[in-house]
């Protein structure tokens, strides 16, 4: 969940006119796109489904949007820390890939892919981001099984078979990542058995699972230097056709990996007044992998410190999170972790501190779309 909706809106804007528009030159607003108006022919996330792995790691054609979303905190032998994010988004232009395309033409495609990658170099407080776009065919991007492979051009996530460990390889102009990923827990189904309702309206939902703790080791290449790193990653997988309501304009998303072996995911949707939307929610995963849902009533979130982006937008980089018996400070490892790509958002590594003692109790990632 998260900015992904917003980012998908970009792709959806790409896809906004499918020839049936009254006025094909008229641009649709994000709200219209994310509303439920243009969903005909697409599959909807309207009821719980049965998840199957590894099949569900691959693409789900028929839905409009899908993503593979990695975030993680990494560290070198001598303690240099990095945060990273790598995302593969896909967005379908139309429900039917064969619609008006001659069989056998390699360029028949109905999906467009977008990749985002970022490194937060904590020691120098520098954040680098890159994006990539591609159509799906001919073989330029995709998500397949046997063996498992998700790719956009030369950015790729792959496995020798369909199982972990996975390899994640991303090369950008400024940095490169080569990470070996091994899941430490089974996938966690978010929402209600993996159906994550974003608005009260039926169908405005996604199928959503996470792999909340992934042992990660590999290399970070930066400034012509290679850094051997290891750490912990988080994978979010989500697919949907329509999700956001017209009254939802942004969100805050937390993925926290606590030192006691638990993981917490919480997203707070924001309405047009900037208040938390009732469809916000989250999940707590125990050390053994059991999960419990978090409702907005159980969660208290307070914004403490702000950082202002060059465009004037305020992002909360220090939070107070009160949940159950815990009282945490969630602090960005440094302020400017703005994703300076086509559509800006803030996504960065955070530390979780016990607010009374100031002791570090976990790490994670925070995403804010304003």
């Amino acid at each position, binding site marked *: 969940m998260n900015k992904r909706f917003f980012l998908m809106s970009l792709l959806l804007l790409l896809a906004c006119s*499918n020839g049936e528009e009254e006025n094909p030159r008229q641009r649709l607003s994000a709200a219209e796109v994310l509303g439920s108006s243009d969903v005909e022919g697409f599959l909807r996330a309207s009821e719980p489904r049965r998840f199957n792995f590894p099949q569900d790691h691959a693409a789900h054609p028929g839905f409009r949007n899908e993503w593979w979303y990695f975030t993680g905190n990494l560290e070198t032998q001598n303690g240099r820390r990095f945060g990273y994010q790598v995302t593969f988004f896909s967005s379908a232009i139309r429900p039917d890939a064969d619609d008006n395309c001659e069989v056998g*033409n390699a360029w*028949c*495609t109905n999906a467009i892919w977008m990749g985002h990658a970022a490194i937060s170099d904590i020691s120098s407080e520098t954040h680098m981001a890159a994006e990539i776009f591609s159509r799906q065919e001919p073989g330029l991007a995709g998500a397949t099984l046997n063996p498992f492979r998700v790719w956009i051009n030369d950015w790729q996530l792959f496995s020798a078979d369909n199982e972990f460990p996975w390899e994640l390889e991303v090369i950008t102009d400024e940095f490169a990542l080569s990470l070996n990923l091994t899941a430490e827990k089974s996938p966690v189904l978010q929402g209600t058995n993996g159906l994550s309702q974003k608005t009260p309206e039926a169908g405005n939902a996604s199928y959503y699972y996470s792999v909340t703790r992934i042992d990660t080791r590999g290399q970070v290449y930066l400034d012509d230097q290679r850094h051997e790193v290891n750490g912990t990653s988080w994978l979010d997988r989500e697919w949907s056709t329509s999700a956001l309501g017209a009254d939802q304009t942004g969100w805050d998303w937390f993925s926290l990996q606590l030192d006691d072996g638990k993981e917490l995911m919480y997203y707070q949707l924001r309405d047009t007044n900037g208040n938390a939307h009732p469809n916000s929610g989250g999940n707590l995963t125990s050390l053994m992998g059991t999960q419990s849902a978090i409702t907005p009533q159980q969660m208290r979130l307070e914004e403490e410190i702000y950082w202002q982006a060059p465009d004037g937008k305020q992002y909360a980089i220090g939070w107070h999170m009160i949940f159950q018996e815990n009282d945490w400070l969630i602090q960005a490892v440094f302020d400017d972790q703005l994703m300076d790509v086509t559509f800006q958002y803030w996504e960065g590594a955070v530390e979780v501190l016990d607010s009374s003692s100031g002791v570090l109790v976990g790490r994670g990632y925070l995403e804010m779309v304003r």
Partner: protein
Amino acid sequence: MVTLPGDLYEYKVITGTGLLWRSAMRYALQRPWQTVLNILGITVGVMMVVAVDLANNSAREAFDKSLELLSGQISHQISAGSDGLPDAFFTRVKTELGLQKAAPSLSGKVRVNGQELTLLGIDVISEAAMQRSRPGLPDQVFAVTGNFIAAIGRTRSVVMEESLAQSLGLEAGDTFTLSTMNASHQAELAAVFESADATLAENLVLADIAAAQKLLDRPGRLDAIDLTLDDEAVAQLRSWLPANLMLVEVQGRNDNLQQMSEAFHINLLAMSLLSLLVAGLLIYNTVTLSVIQRQQTLGIFRAQGVTRQQVFTLVILENAALGLIASVLGVVAGFLLGRFLVSMVTATIDNLYFNLPINSFFVDFWVLLKGLVLGMLLSIASAVLPAVRAALSRPVTLQHQAAVNSEWQRKIHLLALPGILLLLGGRLMLIPEYGSLVTGFVALTLMVFGFCLLVPGLLYLLLQLLLLISRRWIGLPGVMALRNASSAINRTGLAVAALCVAVSVTVGVGVMVGSFRGTVIIWLEQSLPGDLQLTAASANTLREGFPDELLDELDRIDGIEGYYFSVLQQVESEFGPLRLGVNAIPAIEKFYLKETSPDGLTAFDTGQGVFISEPLAYLQKIELEDSISLLTESGLRPFTVKGIFFDYTSGIGMVQMHDSLYEGYWASQPRTRLSLKINPLSNEDVVETAIREILSTYDNGFTLVSNRQLREITLQIFDRTFAITNVLRLLAILVAFIGVVSTLMALQLERLREFAILRATGMTPWQVSSLILKQTAVLGICAGVLALPLGLMMSEVLIDVINRRSFGWSMQHFLPESVLIEGFLLALIAALLGGLYPAWRAAKIMPAMALREE
């Protein structure tokens, strides 16, 4: 009341009434025809220069914009020559190399509602990463967020600029027929876009690569992959690239193309300047006459105290005023004509060098200004000598024309020497074989001037000769006409020289075009082997070639003596893309050869070397036994040049090789063309019908063309390519015609008083009129006769020097009689027309009135 500045004011003071100006004005008004023709001469001259300059500039702009559209802002292209490259290779470039700034490219010509358009296949998503702005295309943001997306991955969908859609009567959602050379397809207008500069997109149809492959019948292929690379990436890519593909540095290639087409522009410009030169000579001539005519009036003014300087200024300003009117008209006319010419110029470039997806009319306002200034300057410059002459006129005293004339006759030989020197000098400049085009034109101009200087002398001799041989038959009036013309050699000589140049331009260009066409016809006869050509035309057949069953069926047709495969494709080379022709016909049978190595023919037939086209040899300075590198399936390989053949189809060059040689380097290429030889005893039509019957079962997979048709088509293309030259020739004829009429009319009008005397001495009006007509006819004939050697000399230079240096073509010389007769008649008819009005005036003249002044 108009305030007059400076000098003009002075005239007013001196004369009290602006008499000088009134007299100038009256002079012009009294001779409306002469004034109009004079203006017309300059107008047409300026029009030609402006039109050609505009067309040239516009075509250059179209060329640049087209290059920018197709390869602007990219550093390199991956190219394969032949039939492009497989699209799977693009996937490898993106996924294996991760080159972000890489975009597929595929384009071609299509027709919609009879309009020729360029279909440009793009992948908008790759384009977004390329971040290039391409002329005529919507800007990047729009391309990405706009409606192009509707067309992605659809094989029928296209997108076009909304004004083009409107002109084709299409709206988004409409389906329409779009055809290529081979087939017609149903396409759907998925969306329209707005371009910041709609004229740039007026010939563009955009489509996703999926649709471009389908609609252009190029399944699975790309023309090239466009790249923006830094040096490091270039090195990396070079080492990774398979041998059969080539990484082309775009700037160098575009420069090369531009240079080649530049020669064509210079060629056109020079032709228009030649016309302006003719116009200048004519102006000079008319102004001189006008001064002579007014010598008496001017003398009177001088006596009244008007200074020499003032007389000089008067004549100059007078002509500047005429020049201004004429130049403004010329610029307007040139603009209109330029609009028309530009399509011809772009057609030429299109046929010879490079498909222009953008061929709009671009107006360069500097050209208009330049034309205006040029026309003015020319008018003024042509008036300088006559103005000096006017300024030198003595007060009151009349100059005796006869005295002046005899003085001139004595001086004729003084002109002849520099004339001969100029001719020789020009000729010498032409000697170096690889001299520049510009020197070629300078030499031509020198030779024309040299000849002009010889004209008075030649005219004198010619007239004496005529007098000598015709004295007995033409009677007294005839003799008078000849004598008169000959004694006034200072004026007639000049007039005839001007006419001569004017007529010779039409002859020279006419002979050149005729020779070129004649050469092409011969060449077509010799270089199209076989009688019928069968060509694969569908996606399938282009990929698979000719099925065996088809060949068996063809074998069974009576009258087919034999067949052989051939290939006609593009090949990458060290000199850029070239055309490659291949078949198994012995060299001796198929080539129109210019030169070969001693063992050339055998070497060719045994696959030991290649033949290259003459333009390629000339422009790239390749000689026999040199080697030329071509991109084969196994990489760039050298081939020995064993012969050079004539070729007039391409400005960029062609290579021919024997099937056996091709086989070794392009083993995987299917044979897509079949030449059929028909038994000379059989009826070609019957055989053709039989073949067509067989082909009908192959679902439009093949097209059959007879060589007869092919020749016609080639000639049509040829004519279209050189339509511009013909138009320029017609314009030159127009200039010449106007010039001849106006010059001779002025010449005779000036002498009305002489005719009045003749009338007074007893000649009837009819006799005087006929004398005038005879005289102009004689001068016209002389101009026509003298124009022929000059025209032929010009054609020699145009054929052997200018065209060679422009295109690298050598041609045979043909002398189309029609051109010579045309030139001669042009001079004669225009001369008679020029004599009509003076003859009419002279007949009406009252001897007493005219003689009162004597």
